[in-house]
């Protein structure tokens, strides 16, 4: 079974440009999450999709970030225009359901974004 896949693995762009990150969750997983780790600090929640609906986007930093999940399959995270402080590793995670006790997340390898 394929895991969570993220593209690209690395992206280097200049300030003011646009970048789009993509996440393909594990097939059948309705829950999809975006997280970000900046400068070796803690991993922070950005938003949560259930199928194609945004369930919680309380972690999105500002309106330069736009996430979509059309059709409830893959998701994209667009940053426009990118700023220096957007640099970091963006992780996507997916889960099937709540399970018996807790929701077990499966993470992708992340996209390392560098804004110069």
């Amino acid at each position: 079974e394929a895991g969570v896949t993220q593209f690209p693995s690395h992206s280097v762009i200049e300030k003011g440009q646009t970048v789009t990150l993509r996440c393909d969750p594990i097939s059948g997983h309705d829950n999809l999450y975006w997280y970000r780790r900046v400068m070796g600090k803690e991993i922070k929640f950005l938003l949560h999709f259930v199928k194609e609906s945004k369930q919680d986007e309380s972690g999105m930093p500002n309106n330069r970030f736009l996430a979509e999940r059309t059709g409830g399959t893959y998701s994209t995270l667009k940053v426009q225009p990118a700023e220096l402080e957007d640099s970091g590793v963006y992780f996507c995670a997916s889960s099937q359901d709540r399970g018996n006790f807790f929701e077990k997340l499966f993470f992708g390898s992340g996209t390392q974004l560098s804004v110069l």
Partner: protein
Amino acid sequence: DQQVKQNSPSLSVQEGRISILNCDYTNSMFDYFLWYKKYPAEGPTFLISISSIKDKNEDGRFTVFLNKSAKHLSLHIVPSQPGDSAVYFCAASALGYGKLTFGQGTILTVHP
């Protein structure tokens, strides 16, 4: 306002010895706690979890202890192996949902 803290950025232990990683939290609404392990260039992978109704959970060489009154949890790895060298993240959840609050991570190095 960091609600989950791992105060030790790094830990170095000898192979075969015990590794103890610590984590503190402030939010009383957290009722599920998890440890994730991360190798370079990979995403975090789930290691072990504990519910707030328990104070200990074991899985092979890994044991997590929870002290609710102190809002403190720890991960014990016994015996430590070189392959355990990685970054360990403590995470907390309310109601067991996937919106996790992570600590900064602790880099564990196990020397042969």
